């Protein structure tokens, strides 16, 4: 019986092929578009998150208490080297990097700007976040007199590779000190804060310049995929400020939250399209076949079997739509993942937000599972009203109408 009903439903889905095709197309196109946009948006925020992690915070960063509020040298992690040693034993940690930063003023003969001098070790940064990939211009060199500058800061100061700048800040004893530096490279990290403010200086030079013990650091950035690590470190170092990426970058958290909202909107748009589409075909199709159902009821078929048949019909149309949409969406997503979408027309606006001009999409299985659920539930919901037509059907009336 079940098989027969399935067969009837399947065949009825194609009784009016053009009608069905239209709905399938409607579902497929809306779904494909939505998947594309979803993938692009996801890709954008993921890319941003990834660059932020690589260039700065990692998955977890450790600071001394109060450092993030008062970026003063006195709030530095004393004897960070010992913590580094401990952390290096943790197999959950992929890599880590220690930095010594100081806020100050960078100036040329003509211009000056706020800047953050970040004492780094290029080899460590390379291992931690492939620093070399950020290079825009020049050569990644951090000799005694070199500095690498963030792209936006370079623009603000109107400096180029080879230009000279002076950086002044308070050292650990409270004295204002300056160093003259030559720009060896310009980097673009897509991390707004770094691009706008960062002046990368050799770490050893920083220690000497600031009069800080070489064992100290202002930040320990950790790369790890272990979700439990954060709490472990928080309990292990209660006197320090252990923060996750999202805690440090509330905007990133916001983007993630937006993604959830965005996904629900997608879900509902697809659901509405499917609902309207299938409702339309099923309604017309049920009206078309009212006599057929009347006869079925008259000869003793129970209403529940007819209902089942209608549900199957709607689900078939929804499924075909889903598969066509998946195919379309997948092709679109693969294209977006491999070739990206060029937004250079809006490049300035995007870059100032830390986005790249070419945005690459991501593909996640969840896009398909959510839309699948959306389509299936819309299919089932869409036949409720058409079904009522049959439920209230009096076979006698229908049979009589034949004459």
């Amino acid at each position, binding site marked *: *019986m079940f098989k*027969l009903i399935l*067969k*009837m439903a399947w*065949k*009825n889905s194609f*009784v009016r092929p053009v009608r069905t095709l239209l709905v399938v197309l409607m579902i497929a196109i809306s779904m494909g578009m939505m998947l594309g946009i979803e993938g692009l948006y996801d890709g954008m925020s993921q890319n941003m998150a990834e660059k932020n992690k690589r260039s700065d915070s990692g998955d977890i960063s450790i600071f001394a208490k109060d450092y993030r509020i008062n970026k003063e040298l006195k709030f530095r992690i004393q004897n960070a080297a010992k913590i580094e040693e401990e952390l290096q034993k943790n197999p959950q940690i992929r890599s880590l990097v220690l930095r010594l930063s100081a806020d100050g003023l960078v100036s040329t003969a003509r211009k000056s700007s706020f800047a953050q001098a970040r004492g780094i070790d290029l080899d460590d940064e390379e291992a931690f976040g492939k620093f070399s990939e950020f290079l825009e211009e020049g050569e990644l060199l951090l000799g005694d007199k070199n500095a690498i500058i963030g792209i936006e800061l370079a623009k603000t100061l109107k400096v180029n590779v080879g230009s000279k700048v002076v950086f002044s800040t308070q050292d650990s004893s409270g004295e204002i000190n300056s160093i003259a530096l030559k720009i060896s490279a310009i980097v673009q990290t897509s991390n707004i804060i770094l691009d706008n403010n960062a002046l990368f200086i050799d770490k050893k030079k920083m220690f000497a310049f600031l009069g800080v013990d070489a064992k100290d650091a202002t930040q320990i950035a950790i790369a790890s995929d272990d979700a439990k690590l954060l709490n472990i470190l928080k309990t292990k170092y209660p006197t320090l400020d252990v923060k996750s990426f999202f805690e440090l970058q509330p905007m990133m958290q916001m983007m993630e939250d937006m993604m959830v909202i965005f996904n629900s909107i997608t879900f509902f748009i697809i659901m509405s399209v499917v609902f309207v589409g299938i409702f339309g075909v099923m309604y017309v199709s049920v009206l078309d076949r009212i*006599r*057929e159902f009347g*006869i*079925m*009821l*008259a*000869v*003793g*078929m*129970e209403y529940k*079997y007819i209902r089942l048949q209608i549900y199957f019909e709607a689900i078939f149309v929804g499924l075909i739509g889903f598969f066509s949409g998946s195919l379309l969406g997948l092709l679109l997503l693969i294209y977006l993942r491999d070739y990206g979408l060029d937004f250079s027309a809006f490049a300035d606006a995007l870059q100032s937000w830390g986005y790249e001009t070419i945005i690459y999409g991501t593909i996640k299985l969840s896009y398909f599972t959510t839309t699948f659920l959306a389509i299936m539930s819309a299919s089932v919901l869409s036949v409720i009203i058409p079904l009522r037509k049959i439920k209230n059907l009096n*076979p*006698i009336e229908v*049979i*009589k109408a*034949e*004459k």
Partner: protein
Amino acid sequence: MIRLQNVNKYFYKDEPREVHALVDINLIIEDGEFTLFSGPSGCGKTTLLNAIGALDTIDSGKIFLDELEISLLNEKERTRIRLNKMGFVFQAYNLVPVLSVEENIGFIMKLQGFSDAQIKERVQEVASLLKIDNKLQSLPNTLSGGQQQRVAVARAVASKPKIILADEPTANLDSKNSQTLIEMMLELNEKEGISVVFASHDELIKESVRRIVRLEDGMLV
């Protein structure tokens, strides 16, 4: 055996346009009988047939199918009785368009839960009696009107119901096809012993049947 006792049926009861469609009908239809309901248009043939076939309810009186008082049944029970005890042939649009002739004939048996093998065998049997066994794989819309009605008869007969109710099954057919259908139904009535109740104002049919029940204004005459 079907027994009707003082059956009354109204449409628009207690309204000015009230129609007293069946008036104190008393009637017995024996097993294996072939009965023709005849009378002018609007006399109540369809209404009577629908009442006997448990398609419609009545306002007073009793209808028995053997010992079962079918006029007392609710909607669901009537559906079950129709499925298991009655066969129906209507004027047109009897068949499920997306199913083959074979599946249409076996449809009721399938609903009743017969196995595929049983259905296949029985479908073959009735299809050859009705001379549509060469059309089993066709879809209904590729068949002529006469063939389609024969498929409908085959479907009604296949499940071996107590009674077949046919409401003007020949109305859309030419006289030759009508004749063939009647003859086949008579033959089936004899061979299978299934009662047939037939509503028609076709003069041709009157000559072929033994029992004619005449109705006029809802009354037996």
